[in-house]
């Protein structure tokens, strides 16, 4: 039982966080709770602290909208949190699509789809930065927030709180795409919000740290990691995972039986390295 907890502790915590936040949002609309009102685009905690999606605000700016003070304060709160502390944690700890794509990745491994398609992926992970750039160009030309009108993240999240409509189809498309077309296709290759947080969270304090001396080269971490290019140093060098593409999901930490991966604060991790 204890080993089960050890192997899934962060996964459980993440699901509790994701579902808990969803439940608070849902309760706000359904029963008038004030803990967390709105949705992931913009919300307000206890009618006091605003939070707004900085990527949505960026698109608004590109579209030529006037940014209101409330929005800017909300953007500052969210940006501060992920920039200084969380890194790309939004993707694995908050975003509801993460549960869909994690499930697709799980089924993919289970049914042996990865063996069928092979290790080589037909698409570049840099695609998301192109999509990110493109979304801003389209926002500017069309004068609307381009990604917000097609985002399956908002469709799912808003759908759960305010009514789904045919939004489940968009979610199914993501699931099927990840399952049959491209491993970690949406979150790891295409999603511009993921790309945005990869850039924003590059300098955050919370980092996964690898200690090479404990590593037994079992490579479980690389199998389970949805962004396994960030673990290039595993078994080679003791380094913190500094790539912004790491979502701090901590799956690598919990599957590691040898204590070779752990959370650490950035500067401490670096000092440790220098002390060697």
């Amino acid at each position, binding site marked *: 039982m204890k080993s089960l907890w050890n192997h899934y502790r962060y996964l459980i915590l993440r699901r509790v966080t994701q579902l808990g936040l969803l439940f608070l949002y849902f309760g706000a*609309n359904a029963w008038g709770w004030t803990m967390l009102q709105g949705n992931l685009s913009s919300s307000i905690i206890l009618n006091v602290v605003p939070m707004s999606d900085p990527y949505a605000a960026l698109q*608004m700016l590109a579209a030529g909208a006037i940014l209101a003070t409330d*929005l800017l304060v909300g953007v500052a709160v969210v940006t501060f949190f992920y920039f200084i502390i969380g890194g790309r944690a939004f993707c694995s700890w908050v975003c509801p699509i993460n549960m869909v794509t994690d499930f697709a990745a799980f089924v993919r491994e289970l049914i042996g789809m990865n063996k069928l398609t092979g290790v080589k992926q037909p698409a570049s992970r840099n695609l998301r930065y192109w999509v990110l750039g493109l979304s801003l160009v*389209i926002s500017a030309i069309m*004068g609307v927030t381009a990604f917000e009108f097609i985002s399956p993240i908002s469709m799912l999240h*808003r759908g759960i709180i305010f009514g789904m*409509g*045919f939004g489940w189809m*968009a979610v199914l498309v993501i699931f099927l795409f990840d399952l049959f077309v491209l491993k970690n296709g949406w979150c790891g290759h295409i999603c511009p919000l993921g790309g945005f947080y990869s850039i924003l969270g590059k300098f955050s304090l919370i980092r996964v740290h690898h200690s090479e001396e404990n590593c037994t080269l079992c490579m479980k971490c690389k199998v389970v990691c949805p962004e396994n290019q960030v673990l290039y140093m595993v078994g080679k060098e003791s380094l913190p995972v500094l790539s912004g593409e790491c979502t701090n999901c901590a799956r690598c930490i919990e599957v590691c039986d040898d204590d070779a991966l752990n959370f650490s604060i950035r500067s401490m991790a670096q000092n440790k390295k220098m002390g060697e």
Partner: protein
Amino acid sequence: MKTKAGLSDRRKFILNMARGIGLASMGGFIWSAFIDEVTASQLILRPPGAIGEKDFLKTCIKCGLCAEACPYDTLLLAKPGDHEPLGTPYFMPRDTPCYMCTDIPCVPVCPTGALDVSSVTTDGHLDINIADMGLAVVDEQSCIAFWGIQCDACYRACPLLGHAITIEYNKNERTGKHAFMKPIVHADACTGCGLCEHACVTEKPAIHILPREVAQGKAGDYYIKGWDKKDEKRLKDAHAIHTTTEISKEKAADKLNGDLLEGLYE
């Protein structure tokens, strides 16, 4: 230097660039076309205080705080399948109209200013009566009051009774002894709340709300009420198209006294 495929580094770089730009353009065009279609809806009624539709689409962040604040669940967020700009708030008055709360809870909660408090404020106080969500339009063919049947459901339902809708009395020539009691909507007072549409007794409402842009025409600068001081002010910013022809180059009198008439007196 040649790579495996027999391409030089230079060619490979150029090809990769072309591929990137090509794919981005392809995706961009599909994406833009989709955005253009999904934001094209004109027949959508926005919450009170909403800024112009074009600005609304770029400013609304689709957070739903207005919908959550609405005590009557009037406001809906467009779902996939509603065929309205996705995630934006709207209402359907036949189902649930806007009950015009005097404290307008939906507007101040808007974090982006897509719902503009100042547009529903008079002398520093929130004033729902100046809201402009749309305009009620009466279909005289299906309105039974225009048939001569007494019905003032819309008039009675109107929160601005006597201002936004009044009853006009006309003689019913068909019977010779009855009166028509026709509902007349006054565009300057109507807020487009939709209580009339909600109350209308006909199978499909004979009075319904349309966005003002759709419901109203525009006389333009060529027609001005000369008897109305206020309307005359429009003359100041009036625009006219001046066409210059051979004849209009000179003053009319000069032209008439000139060569135009020359052949006439010979």
